[in-house]
């Protein structure tokens, strides 16, 4: 894992609440986790939040377990809708998904992870 990827992962993990943090530690070990640092996606809270909320509704209905989803929604709901966020795709042995950070300072916002 590159130094940049390690920093991103560390930033995100430090922002997670305990329950999500523990799952994330398990699913995204420092070694063996790939982070697509070359093609992050950019957007705003306004763009991201409704999509994640819809995803949560779908998951609640289907029973699909998505780690960190409810947590990051709560976090985003407290933010200004024009706040810019950046997302990185992550892939590990047992999980894949996204990590999201604030764009301007790369402060971690949360993760959206599923088992694979």
């Amino acid at each position, binding site marked *: 894992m590159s130094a940049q990827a390690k920093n991103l992962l560390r930033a995100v993990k430090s922002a997670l609440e305990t329950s999500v943090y523990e799952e994330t530690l398990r699913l995204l070990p420092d070694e063996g986790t790939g982070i697509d640092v070359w093609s992050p996606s950019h957007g705003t809270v306004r763009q991201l939040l409704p*999509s994640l909320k819809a995803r949560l509704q*779908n998951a609640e209905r289907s029973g699909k377990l998505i780690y960190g989803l409810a947590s990051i929604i709560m976090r985003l709901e407290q933010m200004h809708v024009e706040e810019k966020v950046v997302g990185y795709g992550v892939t590990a042995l047992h999980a894949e998904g996204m990590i999201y950070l604030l764009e301007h300072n790369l402060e971690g916002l949360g993760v959206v992870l599923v088992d694979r």
Partner: protein
Amino acid sequence: MANAQGDNSNTSQSTSASLGSTGGNSGGTNGGGTGGINGVTSGGAGQVGPDEIPANYTIVITGQRPSGLHPVLPLASMGQEFGWLGKGFGIGIYNTYTELAAMIPGQLAINRIVWGLPDHIVPRNSSLAMGASVGAGAAMFFGGPEVKAEQMVAAEEAGYLYRGVHVGHPGFEAAEAGRVVPGDINGTVSAATHNKDALSVAKSPFTSWTSDLFVAETNAMKAGQGGIILRVPNTPAPRGATWSWQVSPDIYGESEILMRGIRDGVEVMGR
């Protein structure tokens, strides 16, 4: 079953065909309607007022949406709104086209379908507000020779794929016109990234579709009421089409399939 007295059973087992000229007992008076049906139609009807409906047409209020995911509609309240049902139109509840076809007498065929519950039929503040606003399977008009009921049954058995488009979506206006346009037709976003990353779609050559109507609805409602649902038959792209299907990793379990490219002539189910 086939009345509008609040029998909202979704079993629809009765054989009392409501599709005739006897008319459904709407429970309401002939109050002249409330401005017609503001549904998007496959037959180009657009606004259809009660006085514009030929006498041999039959209105059918579906008890469930085509995929059978949602509770039946409160026909008592709808009957009040459909005050003009007493003018010789039948009304019934049907869960599927198959079931509907079984109820169609003789050679009666379908030539016009109106999808979508107009807001004035089910008030927005009702428990069905979501159903009303994003619509799906609400009213149909029958009569004429163009589309046989059997064809509708075949289409249902083949299945459909749905796409919810929310208010404010960059492609919303195009979607209202039955045109599907991805965020960036020349984008290099992969199917995996499109599926995984909600922020990637603006640069993606794909649009998301699902076989699960509930998923389409939640997407249509992302920005509140007013979203629409698109529907296409679950069939391969014809040769030379401007679009194609692509498998999605569907890591979030949303029964997603991706469409690459631009597609016109898509059915708008309603809002």
